[in-house]
Protein backbone atom coordinates (compact mmCIF):
# COMPACT_ATOMS: atom_id res chain seq x y z
CA UNK A 1 0.00 0.00 0.00
CA UNK A 2 2.83 2.26 0.85
CA UNK A 3 5.26 2.30 -1.94
CA UNK A 4 5.00 3.69 -5.38
CA UNK A 5 6.36 0.51 -6.86
CA UNK A 6 3.39 -1.52 -5.76
CA UNK A 7 1.05 1.16 -6.93
CA UNK A 8 2.78 1.34 -10.26
CA UNK A 9 2.70 -2.42 -10.47
CA UNK A 10 -1.04 -2.45 -10.03
CA UNK A 11 -1.38 0.14 -12.73
CA UNK A 12 0.84 -1.98 -14.94
CA UNK A 13 -1.31 -5.03 -14.26
CA UNK A 14 -4.37 -3.06 -15.24
CA UNK A 15 -2.66 -1.96 -18.44
CA UNK A 16 -1.50 -5.48 -19.20
CA UNK A 17 -4.99 -6.80 -18.62
CA UNK A 18 -6.33 -4.26 -21.04
CA UNK A 19 -3.62 -5.09 -23.54
CA UNK A 20 -4.03 -8.81 -23.18
CA UNK A 21 -7.70 -8.25 -23.66
CA UNK A 22 -7.10 -6.53 -26.94
CA UNK A 23 -4.97 -9.41 -28.13
CA UNK A 24 -6.77 -12.15 -26.31
CA UNK A 25 -10.15 -11.62 -27.79
CA UNK A 26 -9.28 -14.25 -30.29
CA UNK A 27 -9.92 -16.58 -27.42
CA UNK A 28 -13.59 -16.07 -27.64
CA UNK A 29 -14.29 -14.77 -31.07
CA UNK A 30 -15.93 -16.96 -33.59
CA UNK A 31 -12.82 -17.08 -35.75
CA UNK A 32 -11.45 -19.42 -33.16
CA UNK A 33 -14.20 -21.83 -33.90
CA UNK A 34 -12.35 -23.37 -36.81
CA UNK A 35 -12.19 -26.56 -34.97
CA UNK A 36 -9.77 -29.24 -35.87
CA UNK A 37 -12.31 -31.88 -36.66
CA UNK A 38 -12.45 -31.33 -40.38
CA UNK A 39 -10.81 -34.68 -40.96
CA UNK A 40 -14.20 -36.25 -40.32
CA UNK A 41 -12.57 -39.69 -40.17
CA UNK A 42 -11.92 -39.77 -36.45
CA UNK A 43 -14.70 -38.62 -34.19
CA UNK A 44 -12.44 -36.64 -31.87
CA UNK A 45 -14.10 -33.22 -31.75
CA UNK A 46 -12.35 -30.28 -30.21
CA UNK A 47 -12.47 -26.52 -30.24
CA UNK A 48 -14.97 -24.04 -28.95
CA UNK A 49 -18.43 -23.00 -29.96
CA UNK A 50 -20.29 -19.87 -28.94
CA UNK A 51 -24.08 -19.79 -29.06
CA UNK A 52 -26.34 -16.89 -28.15
CA UNK A 53 -29.94 -15.84 -28.49
CA UNK A 54 -33.40 -16.64 -27.24
CA UNK A 55 -33.64 -16.74 -23.48
CA UNK A 56 -36.58 -19.14 -23.71
CA UNK A 57 -34.39 -21.68 -25.52
CA UNK A 58 -31.34 -21.15 -23.35
CA UNK A 59 -32.16 -23.85 -20.77
CA UNK A 60 -32.74 -26.48 -23.49
CA UNK A 61 -29.62 -25.62 -25.46
CA UNK A 62 -27.51 -25.32 -22.32
CA UNK A 63 -28.63 -28.75 -21.15
CA UNK A 64 -27.87 -30.25 -24.57
CA UNK A 65 -24.50 -28.51 -24.56
CA UNK A 66 -23.72 -29.99 -21.18
CA UNK A 67 -24.36 -33.53 -22.39
CA UNK A 68 -22.50 -32.83 -25.61
CA UNK A 69 -19.45 -31.68 -23.68
CA UNK A 70 -19.62 -34.78 -21.50
CA UNK A 71 -19.48 -36.90 -24.65
CA UNK A 72 -16.68 -34.79 -26.14
CA UNK A 73 -14.43 -33.68 -23.28
CA UNK A 74 -12.18 -31.48 -25.41
CA UNK A 75 -15.06 -29.40 -26.72
CA UNK A 76 -16.16 -26.17 -25.09
CA UNK A 77 -19.66 -24.90 -25.83
CA UNK A 78 -20.81 -21.58 -24.40
CA UNK A 79 -24.52 -20.83 -24.42
CA UNK A 80 -25.38 -17.19 -23.82
CA UNK A 81 -28.86 -15.77 -23.54
CA UNK A 82 -29.59 -12.22 -24.62
CA UNK A 83 -32.78 -12.52 -26.62
CA UNK A 84 -33.77 -13.62 -30.12
CA UNK A 85 -32.82 -10.29 -31.68
CA UNK A 86 -29.37 -10.46 -30.18
CA UNK A 87 -28.88 -14.03 -31.36
CA UNK A 88 -29.90 -13.26 -34.93
CA UNK A 89 -27.79 -10.10 -35.03
CA UNK A 90 -24.72 -11.81 -33.65
CA UNK A 91 -24.91 -14.82 -35.94
CA UNK A 92 -25.30 -12.54 -38.98
CA UNK A 93 -22.27 -10.55 -37.87
CA UNK A 94 -20.36 -13.76 -37.34
CA UNK A 95 -19.59 -12.99 -33.71
CA UNK A 96 -21.23 -16.29 -32.66
CA UNK A 97 -21.51 -19.53 -34.63
CA UNK A 98 -25.10 -20.35 -33.72
CA UNK A 99 -27.92 -17.88 -33.06
CA UNK A 100 -31.11 -19.12 -31.40
CA UNK A 101 -34.43 -17.48 -32.14
CA UNK A 102 -38.11 -17.97 -31.28
CA UNK A 103 -39.14 -16.54 -34.64
CA UNK A 104 -38.15 -16.95 -38.28
CA UNK A 105 -35.27 -14.68 -39.27
CA UNK A 106 -37.51 -13.37 -42.05
CA UNK A 107 -39.79 -11.85 -39.40
CA UNK A 108 -37.12 -9.60 -37.95
CA UNK A 109 -35.98 -6.31 -39.47
CA UNK A 110 -32.46 -5.91 -40.71
CA UNK A 111 -31.48 -9.59 -40.72
CA UNK A 112 -30.17 -11.04 -44.01
CA UNK A 113 -32.30 -14.19 -43.72
CA UNK A 114 -31.06 -15.52 -47.07
CA UNK A 115 -27.52 -15.74 -45.69
CA UNK A 116 -28.59 -17.79 -42.68
CA UNK A 117 -29.40 -21.47 -42.53
CA UNK A 118 -32.38 -22.45 -40.39
CA UNK A 119 -32.36 -25.54 -38.16
CA UNK A 120 -35.70 -26.14 -36.47
CA UNK A 121 -34.58 -27.85 -33.29
CA UNK A 122 -37.89 -27.94 -31.43
CA UNK A 123 -41.51 -26.85 -31.49
CA UNK A 124 -43.26 -24.94 -28.75
CA UNK A 125 -47.01 -25.01 -28.34
CA UNK A 126 -48.80 -22.25 -26.49
CA UNK A 127 -52.32 -21.35 -25.56
CA UNK A 128 -54.39 -18.82 -23.68
CA UNK A 129 -54.00 -19.40 -19.95
CA UNK A 130 -56.55 -18.22 -17.40
CA UNK A 131 -56.94 -17.95 -13.68
CA UNK A 132 -58.63 -21.25 -12.64
CA UNK A 133 -61.44 -19.41 -10.82
CA UNK A 134 -62.79 -18.04 -14.12
CA UNK A 135 -64.40 -21.42 -14.58
CA UNK A 136 -64.31 -22.04 -18.30
CA UNK A 137 -62.06 -24.45 -20.14
CA UNK A 138 -62.85 -23.88 -23.77
CA UNK A 139 -63.10 -20.75 -25.87
CA UNK A 140 -63.85 -20.18 -29.52
CA UNK A 141 -61.22 -18.37 -31.53
CA UNK A 142 -63.72 -15.64 -32.26
CA UNK A 143 -64.32 -15.02 -28.56
CA UNK A 144 -60.59 -15.24 -27.84
CA UNK A 145 -60.00 -12.38 -30.27
CA UNK A 146 -62.84 -10.42 -28.69
CA UNK A 147 -61.37 -10.97 -25.22
CA UNK A 148 -57.88 -9.87 -26.25
CA UNK A 149 -59.04 -6.85 -28.22
CA UNK A 150 -61.13 -5.65 -25.29
CA UNK A 151 -64.57 -6.20 -26.86
CA UNK A 152 -65.55 -8.64 -24.15
CA UNK A 153 -64.70 -7.30 -20.70
CA UNK A 154 -66.37 -9.71 -18.29
CA UNK A 155 -66.12 -13.50 -18.08
CA UNK A 156 -69.84 -13.90 -17.49
CA UNK A 157 -70.44 -13.04 -21.15
CA UNK A 158 -68.71 -16.33 -21.93
CA UNK A 159 -70.47 -18.29 -19.22
CA UNK A 160 -67.72 -17.92 -16.65
CA UNK A 161 -67.67 -16.23 -13.27
CA UNK A 162 -68.73 -12.60 -12.87
CA UNK A 163 -65.18 -11.23 -13.05
CA UNK A 164 -63.59 -8.41 -14.96
CA UNK A 165 -61.12 -9.60 -17.57
CA UNK A 166 -57.51 -8.58 -17.00
CA UNK A 167 -55.10 -9.05 -19.90
CA UNK A 168 -51.50 -10.09 -19.36
CA UNK A 169 -49.37 -9.32 -22.41
CA UNK A 170 -45.82 -9.73 -23.62
CA UNK A 171 -43.68 -6.87 -24.92
CA UNK A 172 -43.89 -5.95 -28.63
CA UNK A 173 -40.63 -7.59 -29.50
CA UNK A 174 -41.35 -10.92 -27.84
CA UNK A 175 -41.48 -14.05 -30.01
CA UNK A 176 -44.21 -15.58 -27.85
CA UNK A 177 -46.40 -12.55 -28.47
CA UNK A 178 -45.72 -12.64 -32.21
CA UNK A 179 -46.75 -16.31 -32.39
CA UNK A 180 -49.86 -15.86 -30.28
CA UNK A 181 -51.04 -12.80 -32.20
CA UNK A 182 -50.46 -14.49 -35.55
CA UNK A 183 -52.06 -17.88 -34.90
CA UNK A 184 -54.26 -17.26 -31.88
CA UNK A 185 -55.68 -13.84 -32.68
CA UNK A 186 -55.32 -13.97 -36.48
CA UNK A 187 -53.23 -10.82 -36.39
CA UNK A 188 -55.51 -8.66 -34.23
CA UNK A 189 -53.64 -6.24 -31.99
CA UNK A 190 -54.23 -7.01 -28.31
CA UNK A 191 -55.55 -4.27 -26.06
CA UNK A 192 -53.30 -2.97 -23.31
CA UNK A 193 -52.70 -4.82 -20.10
CA UNK A 194 -49.94 -5.76 -17.74
CA UNK A 195 -46.86 -6.51 -19.82
CA UNK A 196 -44.16 -8.91 -18.69
CA UNK A 197 -41.57 -10.77 -20.69
CA UNK A 198 -41.09 -13.75 -18.49
CA UNK A 199 -43.15 -16.92 -18.59
CA UNK A 200 -42.68 -17.37 -14.86
CA UNK A 201 -43.84 -13.86 -14.06
CA UNK A 202 -46.81 -14.10 -16.41
CA UNK A 203 -47.85 -17.37 -14.82
CA UNK A 204 -47.56 -15.86 -11.36
CA UNK A 205 -49.67 -12.86 -12.33
CA UNK A 206 -52.40 -14.99 -13.92
CA UNK A 207 -52.44 -17.22 -10.86
CA UNK A 208 -52.78 -14.32 -8.42
CA UNK A 209 -55.05 -11.94 -10.32
CA UNK A 210 -58.75 -12.77 -10.44
CA UNK A 211 -60.08 -12.84 -14.00
CA UNK A 212 -56.64 -12.72 -15.60
CA UNK A 213 -55.88 -14.16 -19.02
CA UNK A 214 -52.50 -14.38 -20.70
CA UNK A 215 -50.69 -16.80 -22.95
CA UNK A 216 -48.13 -19.40 -21.96
CA UNK A 217 -46.09 -22.18 -23.48
CA UNK A 218 -47.40 -25.69 -22.69
CA UNK A 219 -44.51 -26.37 -20.35
CA UNK A 220 -45.95 -23.86 -17.88
CA UNK A 221 -49.38 -25.49 -17.79
CA UNK A 222 -48.18 -28.47 -15.77
CA UNK A 223 -50.03 -27.69 -12.53
CA UNK A 224 -53.34 -26.28 -11.37
CA UNK A 225 -52.09 -22.74 -10.78
CA UNK A 226 -53.28 -21.65 -14.21
CA UNK A 227 -55.58 -23.29 -16.72
CA UNK A 228 -54.75 -23.74 -20.39
CA UNK A 229 -57.81 -23.19 -22.56
CA UNK A 230 -58.91 -25.46 -25.38
CA UNK A 231 -59.52 -23.48 -28.52
CA UNK A 232 -62.59 -24.32 -30.61
CA UNK A 233 -62.83 -27.53 -28.62
CA UNK A 234 -59.27 -28.65 -29.43
CA UNK A 235 -57.24 -29.43 -26.32
CA UNK A 236 -53.78 -27.89 -26.00
CA UNK A 237 -51.77 -31.12 -26.15
CA UNK A 238 -48.54 -32.11 -27.86
CA UNK A 239 -50.39 -34.61 -30.04
CA UNK A 240 -52.81 -31.98 -31.32
CA UNK A 241 -49.93 -29.68 -32.20
CA UNK A 242 -48.08 -32.49 -34.00
CA UNK A 243 -51.13 -33.40 -36.06
CA UNK A 244 -51.76 -29.76 -36.92
CA UNK A 245 -55.15 -29.59 -35.19
CA UNK A 246 -54.07 -27.05 -32.59
CA UNK A 247 -53.06 -23.80 -34.31
CA UNK A 248 -50.86 -21.89 -31.88
CA UNK A 249 -47.29 -23.16 -32.07
CA UNK A 250 -43.92 -22.01 -33.31
CA UNK A 251 -40.53 -23.42 -34.10
CA UNK A 252 -37.49 -22.86 -31.98
CA UNK A 253 -34.73 -22.08 -34.48
CA UNK A 254 -30.99 -22.43 -34.39
CA UNK A 255 -29.45 -20.37 -37.17
CA UNK A 256 -25.97 -20.67 -38.62
CA UNK A 257 -24.35 -18.27 -41.04
CA UNK A 258 -24.26 -20.10 -44.34
CA UNK A 259 -24.13 -23.89 -44.19
CA UNK A 260 -23.36 -25.31 -40.78
CA UNK A 261 -19.97 -26.96 -40.74
CA UNK A 262 -17.44 -28.39 -38.34
CA UNK A 263 -18.30 -28.14 -34.68
CA UNK A 264 -21.47 -26.12 -35.25
CA UNK A 265 -22.77 -28.84 -37.54
CA UNK A 266 -21.82 -31.55 -35.09
CA UNK A 267 -23.69 -29.77 -32.32
CA UNK A 268 -26.80 -29.12 -34.40
CA UNK A 269 -26.80 -32.76 -35.53
CA UNK A 270 -26.63 -33.66 -31.86
CA UNK A 271 -29.59 -31.38 -31.11
CA UNK A 272 -31.57 -33.15 -33.84
CA UNK A 273 -30.51 -36.62 -32.69
CA UNK A 274 -32.98 -38.94 -30.97
CA UNK A 275 -31.04 -38.62 -27.76
CA UNK A 276 -31.99 -34.95 -27.43
CA UNK A 277 -35.29 -35.00 -29.31
CA UNK A 278 -36.77 -37.88 -27.31
CA UNK A 279 -35.38 -36.98 -23.95
CA UNK A 280 -34.33 -33.39 -23.27
CA UNK A 281 -36.84 -31.73 -25.57
CA UNK A 282 -40.00 -33.27 -24.04
CA UNK A 283 -38.44 -33.04 -20.57
CA UNK A 284 -38.36 -29.30 -20.91
CA UNK A 285 -41.88 -29.06 -22.22
CA UNK A 286 -41.03 -28.69 -25.88
CA UNK A 287 -42.31 -30.83 -28.72
CA UNK A 288 -39.77 -32.76 -30.78
CA UNK A 289 -39.55 -31.19 -34.20
CA UNK A 290 -38.81 -34.61 -35.66
CA UNK A 291 -42.32 -35.76 -34.63
CA UNK A 292 -44.23 -33.00 -36.40
CA UNK A 293 -46.65 -34.24 -39.05
CA UNK A 294 -47.17 -30.72 -40.41
CA UNK A 295 -44.78 -27.98 -41.42
CA UNK A 296 -44.91 -24.24 -41.72
CA UNK A 297 -42.93 -21.67 -43.66
CA UNK A 298 -41.88 -18.23 -42.52
CA UNK A 299 -45.17 -16.73 -43.67
CA UNK A 300 -47.09 -19.07 -41.42
CA UNK A 301 -48.56 -21.18 -44.21
CA UNK A 302 -49.03 -24.86 -43.50
CA UNK A 303 -47.34 -27.25 -45.86
Amino acid at each position, binding site marked *: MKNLKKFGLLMMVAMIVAFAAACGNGNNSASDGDNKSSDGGNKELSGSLVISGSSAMQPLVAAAAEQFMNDNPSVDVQVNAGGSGTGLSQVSEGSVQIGNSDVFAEEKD*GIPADKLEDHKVAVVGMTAAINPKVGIDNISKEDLIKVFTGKITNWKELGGADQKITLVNRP*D*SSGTRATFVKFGLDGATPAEGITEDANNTVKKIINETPGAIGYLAFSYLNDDKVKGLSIDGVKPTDENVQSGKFPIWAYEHSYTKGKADGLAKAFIDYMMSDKVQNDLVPNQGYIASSKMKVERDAKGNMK
Partner: protein
Amino acid sequence: MEKTVPASKRLMKSSKSRMNGEFTGRLLVTLCALIMIAATVSITIFLGTKGLQAFIKNGVNPIEFLTSANWNPLKEKPGYGALTFIFGSFAVTLLSALVAAPLGIGGAIFMTEIAPSWGRKVLQPVIELLVGIPSVVYGFIGLTVLVPFVRHHIGGLGFGLLTGTVVLAVMILPTITTIATDAMSTLPKNLREGSYALGATRWQTIRKVLIPAALPSLLTAIVLGMARAFGEALAVQMVIGNSRDLPSSILDTAATLTTIITLNIGNTTYGSVENNTLWSMGLILLIMSFGFILLIRYLSSRRKL
Protein backbone atom coordinates in the same frame (compact mmCIF):
# COMPACT_ATOMS: atom_id res chain seq x y z
CA MET B 1 5.56 -1.52 6.22
CA GLU B 2 8.75 -0.60 4.44
CA LYS B 3 12.18 -1.43 5.73
CA THR B 4 13.76 1.58 7.27
CA VAL B 5 16.65 2.81 5.21
CA PRO B 6 19.61 4.29 7.09
CA ALA B 7 19.45 8.06 7.16
CA SER B 8 22.83 8.40 5.44
CA LYS B 9 21.50 6.59 2.43
CA ARG B 10 18.34 8.59 2.33
CA LEU B 11 20.25 11.84 2.46
CA MET B 12 22.58 10.65 -0.26
CA LYS B 13 19.65 10.45 -2.61
CA SER B 14 20.23 13.15 -5.13
CA SER B 15 17.65 15.81 -5.33
CA LYS B 16 17.35 15.04 -9.00
CA SER B 17 16.03 11.55 -8.49
CA ARG B 18 13.71 12.92 -5.86
CA MET B 19 12.39 15.47 -8.29
CA ASN B 20 11.93 12.61 -10.77
CA GLY B 21 9.79 10.71 -8.32
CA GLU B 22 7.88 13.87 -7.70
CA PHE B 23 7.20 14.27 -11.40
CA THR B 24 6.18 10.65 -12.01
CA GLY B 25 3.87 10.61 -9.05
CA ARG B 26 2.20 13.76 -10.10
CA LEU B 27 1.83 12.49 -13.65
CA LEU B 28 0.29 9.24 -12.46
CA VAL B 29 -2.38 10.81 -10.28
CA THR B 30 -3.18 13.42 -12.91
CA LEU B 31 -3.73 10.62 -15.42
CA CYS B 32 -6.07 8.89 -12.97
CA ALA B 33 -8.08 12.05 -12.65
CA LEU B 34 -8.19 12.57 -16.38
CA ILE B 35 -9.65 9.06 -16.82
CA MET B 36 -12.83 10.47 -15.29
CA ILE B 37 -13.12 13.00 -18.08
CA ALA B 38 -12.28 10.36 -20.68
CA ALA B 39 -14.96 8.00 -19.35
CA THR B 40 -17.64 10.68 -19.27
CA VAL B 41 -16.79 11.95 -22.73
CA SER B 42 -16.73 8.48 -24.25
CA ILE B 43 -20.04 7.51 -22.66
CA THR B 44 -21.60 10.68 -24.03
CA ILE B 45 -20.18 10.17 -27.51
CA PHE B 46 -21.08 6.47 -27.70
CA LEU B 47 -24.61 6.81 -26.44
CA GLY B 48 -25.10 10.08 -28.29
CA THR B 49 -24.25 8.67 -31.70
CA LYS B 50 -26.17 5.47 -31.10
CA GLY B 51 -29.15 7.28 -29.62
CA LEU B 52 -29.45 9.72 -32.52
CA GLN B 53 -29.43 6.99 -35.18
CA ALA B 54 -33.17 6.50 -34.98
CA PHE B 55 -33.66 10.12 -36.03
CA ILE B 56 -30.80 10.42 -38.51
CA LYS B 57 -30.82 7.02 -40.19
CA ASN B 58 -34.36 5.76 -39.76
CA GLY B 59 -36.02 9.12 -40.10
CA VAL B 60 -38.06 8.90 -36.91
CA ASN B 61 -39.41 12.34 -36.16
CA PRO B 62 -37.83 13.51 -32.89
CA ILE B 63 -40.80 15.73 -32.06
CA GLU B 64 -43.17 12.82 -32.51
CA PHE B 65 -40.85 10.62 -30.45
CA LEU B 66 -41.05 13.04 -27.54
CA THR B 67 -44.67 14.11 -27.75
CA SER B 68 -46.72 11.20 -29.08
CA ALA B 69 -48.01 8.42 -26.90
CA ASN B 70 -48.44 6.04 -29.81
CA TRP B 71 -45.87 3.27 -29.39
CA ASN B 72 -46.53 0.53 -31.92
CA PRO B 73 -43.23 -0.37 -33.53
CA LEU B 74 -44.54 -3.51 -35.23
CA LYS B 75 -47.72 -2.22 -36.85
CA GLU B 76 -48.07 -1.64 -40.60
CA LYS B 77 -47.88 2.05 -39.84
CA PRO B 78 -45.43 2.00 -36.97
CA GLY B 79 -45.65 4.63 -34.25
CA TYR B 80 -42.56 5.57 -32.27
CA GLY B 81 -43.94 7.84 -29.59
CA ALA B 82 -42.26 7.48 -26.23
CA LEU B 83 -44.36 10.02 -24.33
CA THR B 84 -46.05 7.34 -22.21
CA PHE B 85 -42.70 6.10 -20.97
CA ILE B 86 -41.27 9.57 -20.43
CA PHE B 87 -44.39 10.44 -18.48
CA GLY B 88 -44.14 7.20 -16.50
CA SER B 89 -40.52 7.86 -15.60
CA PHE B 90 -41.29 11.38 -14.37
CA ALA B 91 -44.43 10.26 -12.56
CA VAL B 92 -42.78 7.55 -10.47
CA THR B 93 -39.76 9.77 -9.85
CA LEU B 94 -41.81 12.70 -8.54
CA LEU B 95 -44.19 10.52 -6.55
CA SER B 96 -41.43 8.54 -4.89
CA ALA B 97 -39.62 11.79 -4.04
CA LEU B 98 -42.85 13.05 -2.46
CA VAL B 99 -42.95 9.98 -0.24
CA ALA B 100 -39.25 9.72 0.50
CA ALA B 101 -38.37 13.40 1.00
CA PRO B 102 -40.35 14.01 4.20
CA LEU B 103 -39.22 10.66 5.60
CA GLY B 104 -35.59 11.22 4.68
CA ILE B 105 -35.39 14.78 5.91
CA GLY B 106 -37.34 13.86 9.03
CA GLY B 107 -34.91 11.07 9.70
CA ALA B 108 -32.01 13.46 9.20
CA ILE B 109 -33.48 15.98 11.65
CA PHE B 110 -34.06 13.21 14.15
CA MET B 111 -30.43 12.19 13.86
CA THR B 112 -28.97 15.68 14.12
CA GLU B 113 -31.38 17.63 16.33
CA ILE B 114 -33.45 15.32 18.48
CA ALA B 115 -31.52 12.24 19.46
CA PRO B 116 -27.98 12.45 18.12
CA SER B 117 -26.55 9.58 20.14
CA TRP B 118 -29.43 7.18 19.48
CA GLY B 119 -29.53 8.32 15.88
CA ARG B 120 -25.87 7.63 15.30
CA LYS B 121 -25.99 4.27 16.99
CA VAL B 122 -29.17 2.94 15.39
CA LEU B 123 -30.35 4.99 12.45
CA GLN B 124 -26.98 5.49 10.76
CA PRO B 125 -26.21 1.75 10.39
CA VAL B 126 -29.78 1.13 9.30
CA ILE B 127 -29.45 3.68 6.52
CA GLU B 128 -26.13 2.21 5.41
CA LEU B 129 -27.65 -1.25 5.24
CA LEU B 130 -30.59 0.03 3.20
CA VAL B 131 -28.08 1.41 0.66
CA GLY B 132 -26.56 -2.02 0.37
CA ILE B 133 -29.73 -3.96 -0.48
CA PRO B 134 -29.47 -4.81 -4.20
CA SER B 135 -32.20 -3.53 -6.47
CA VAL B 136 -33.15 -7.01 -7.68
CA VAL B 137 -33.95 -7.91 -4.08
CA TYR B 138 -36.22 -4.87 -3.78
CA GLY B 139 -37.94 -5.95 -6.98
CA PHE B 140 -38.33 -9.51 -5.75
CA ILE B 141 -39.90 -8.36 -2.48
CA GLY B 142 -42.10 -5.88 -4.32
CA LEU B 143 -43.36 -8.65 -6.55
CA THR B 144 -43.98 -11.22 -3.83
CA VAL B 145 -45.22 -9.01 -1.00
CA LEU B 146 -46.25 -5.55 -2.10
CA VAL B 147 -48.15 -6.40 -5.29
CA PRO B 148 -50.56 -8.86 -3.61
CA PHE B 149 -50.91 -6.49 -0.65
CA VAL B 150 -51.94 -3.55 -2.83
CA ARG B 151 -54.32 -5.74 -4.84
CA HIS B 152 -56.11 -7.07 -1.77
CA HIS B 153 -56.20 -3.99 0.40
CA ILE B 154 -56.16 -0.98 -1.89
CA GLY B 155 -57.50 -2.12 -5.22
CA GLY B 156 -56.47 -2.37 -8.81
CA LEU B 157 -54.22 -5.12 -10.08
CA GLY B 158 -51.40 -4.54 -7.66
CA PHE B 159 -49.09 -3.69 -10.51
CA GLY B 160 -48.89 0.00 -11.19
CA LEU B 161 -47.67 3.45 -10.31
CA LEU B 162 -48.41 3.11 -6.61
CA THR B 163 -46.40 -0.06 -6.14
CA GLY B 164 -43.54 1.33 -8.22
CA THR B 165 -43.61 4.48 -6.13
CA VAL B 166 -43.40 2.64 -2.83
CA VAL B 167 -40.52 0.42 -3.98
CA LEU B 168 -38.60 3.41 -5.34
CA ALA B 169 -39.31 5.51 -2.26
CA VAL B 170 -37.68 2.90 -0.04
CA MET B 171 -34.77 2.68 -2.49
CA ILE B 172 -34.02 6.41 -2.52
CA LEU B 173 -34.68 6.98 1.16
CA PRO B 174 -31.06 6.29 2.20
CA THR B 175 -29.68 8.64 -0.45
CA ILE B 176 -31.87 11.51 0.74
CA THR B 177 -31.31 10.79 4.44
CA THR B 178 -27.53 10.60 4.18
CA ILE B 179 -27.11 13.86 2.30
CA ALA B 180 -29.71 15.67 4.38
CA THR B 181 -27.95 14.52 7.56
CA ASP B 182 -24.66 15.92 6.27
CA ALA B 183 -26.38 19.18 5.42
CA MET B 184 -27.98 19.55 8.86
CA SER B 185 -24.87 18.63 10.79
CA THR B 186 -22.65 21.14 9.00
CA LEU B 187 -24.88 24.07 9.98
CA PRO B 188 -23.01 26.49 12.27
CA LYS B 189 -23.76 25.96 15.97
CA ASN B 190 -24.47 29.61 16.63
CA LEU B 191 -27.63 29.41 14.54
CA ARG B 192 -29.21 27.02 17.02
CA GLU B 193 -27.81 28.80 20.04
CA GLY B 194 -29.03 32.19 18.84
CA SER B 195 -32.48 30.83 18.23
CA TYR B 196 -32.73 29.13 21.62
CA ALA B 197 -31.40 32.27 23.30
CA LEU B 198 -34.34 34.16 21.83
CA GLY B 199 -36.64 31.71 23.56
CA ALA B 200 -37.67 29.63 20.55
CA THR B 201 -38.69 26.04 21.08
CA ARG B 202 -36.80 23.27 19.30
CA TRP B 203 -39.52 22.87 16.67
CA GLN B 204 -39.54 26.61 15.96
CA THR B 205 -35.77 26.53 15.62
CA ILE B 206 -35.92 23.63 13.21
CA ARG B 207 -38.75 25.10 11.16
CA LYS B 208 -37.78 28.77 11.04
CA VAL B 209 -34.00 28.69 11.27
CA LEU B 210 -32.40 25.37 10.43
CA ILE B 211 -34.51 24.15 7.51
CA PRO B 212 -34.38 27.50 5.67
CA ALA B 213 -30.62 27.67 6.23
CA ALA B 214 -30.06 24.15 4.93
CA LEU B 215 -32.69 24.37 2.20
CA PRO B 216 -30.38 24.33 -0.85
CA SER B 217 -28.57 21.28 0.47
CA LEU B 218 -31.83 19.56 1.38
CA LEU B 219 -33.09 20.16 -2.14
CA THR B 220 -29.83 18.74 -3.47
CA ALA B 221 -30.50 15.61 -1.44
CA ILE B 222 -33.97 15.28 -2.95
CA VAL B 223 -32.69 15.85 -6.49
CA LEU B 224 -30.00 13.19 -6.08
CA GLY B 225 -32.66 10.80 -4.83
CA MET B 226 -34.78 11.62 -7.86
CA ALA B 227 -31.83 11.00 -10.16
CA ARG B 228 -31.52 7.54 -8.70
CA ALA B 229 -35.23 6.86 -9.02
CA PHE B 230 -35.28 8.01 -12.62
CA GLY B 231 -32.65 5.53 -13.65
CA GLU B 232 -33.74 2.51 -11.65
CA ALA B 233 -34.65 -0.33 -13.97
CA LEU B 234 -35.03 -3.85 -12.66
CA ALA B 235 -36.92 -3.26 -9.44
CA VAL B 236 -39.44 -1.01 -11.19
CA GLN B 237 -39.90 -3.40 -14.07
CA MET B 238 -41.00 -6.16 -11.74
CA VAL B 239 -43.81 -4.13 -10.17
CA ILE B 240 -45.07 -1.39 -12.48
CA GLY B 241 -46.94 -3.46 -15.06
CA ASN B 242 -45.27 -2.01 -18.18
CA SER B 243 -48.37 -1.17 -20.20
CA ARG B 244 -48.28 1.22 -23.13
CA ASP B 245 -51.25 3.33 -22.14
CA LEU B 246 -51.02 6.54 -20.18
CA PRO B 247 -52.04 5.73 -16.61
CA SER B 248 -55.32 7.30 -15.56
CA SER B 249 -54.91 6.79 -11.83
CA ILE B 250 -52.24 5.93 -9.32
CA LEU B 251 -53.44 2.32 -9.26
CA ASP B 252 -53.12 1.99 -13.02
CA THR B 253 -50.31 0.15 -14.74
CA ALA B 254 -47.66 2.31 -16.38
CA ALA B 255 -44.25 1.95 -17.98
CA THR B 256 -40.98 3.85 -17.73
CA LEU B 257 -38.12 4.38 -20.15
CA THR B 258 -35.93 1.95 -18.26
CA THR B 259 -38.49 -0.86 -18.16
CA ILE B 260 -39.17 -0.65 -21.89
CA ILE B 261 -35.44 -0.82 -22.58
CA THR B 262 -34.86 -3.91 -20.44
CA LEU B 263 -37.97 -5.65 -21.80
CA ASN B 264 -37.21 -5.17 -25.46
CA ILE B 265 -33.51 -4.69 -26.06
CA GLY B 266 -32.66 -8.39 -26.24
CA ASN B 267 -35.49 -9.30 -28.56
CA THR B 268 -34.83 -6.62 -31.15
CA THR B 269 -32.14 -6.86 -33.79
CA TYR B 270 -29.22 -4.46 -33.97
CA GLY B 271 -29.87 -1.54 -36.24
CA SER B 272 -33.62 -2.09 -36.56
CA VAL B 273 -35.73 1.00 -35.97
CA GLU B 274 -37.22 -0.38 -32.78
CA ASN B 275 -33.80 -1.16 -31.37
CA ASN B 276 -32.52 2.29 -32.27
CA THR B 277 -35.46 3.99 -30.57
CA LEU B 278 -34.59 2.05 -27.42
CA TRP B 279 -31.10 3.54 -27.62
CA SER B 280 -32.72 6.94 -27.99
CA MET B 281 -34.51 6.29 -24.72
CA GLY B 282 -31.14 5.47 -23.20
CA LEU B 283 -29.92 8.82 -24.48
CA ILE B 284 -32.86 10.53 -22.77
CA LEU B 285 -31.79 8.87 -19.51
CA LEU B 286 -28.26 10.18 -20.02
CA ILE B 287 -29.45 13.71 -20.79
CA MET B 288 -31.67 13.60 -17.70
CA SER B 289 -28.61 12.64 -15.61
CA PHE B 290 -26.85 15.74 -16.89
CA GLY B 291 -29.99 17.73 -16.17
CA PHE B 292 -30.11 16.56 -12.57
CA ILE B 293 -26.44 17.48 -12.13
CA LEU B 294 -27.02 20.96 -13.54
CA LEU B 295 -29.96 21.38 -11.19
CA ILE B 296 -27.77 20.40 -8.24
CA ARG B 297 -25.11 22.85 -9.41
CA TYR B 298 -27.68 25.62 -9.51
CA LEU B 299 -28.92 24.71 -6.04
CA SER B 300 -25.47 24.67 -4.48
CA SER B 301 -24.65 28.05 -6.01
CA ARG B 302 -27.54 29.39 -3.96
CA ARG B 303 -26.13 28.16 -0.68
CA LYS B 304 -26.20 31.07 1.70
CA LEU B 305 -23.83 29.67 4.28
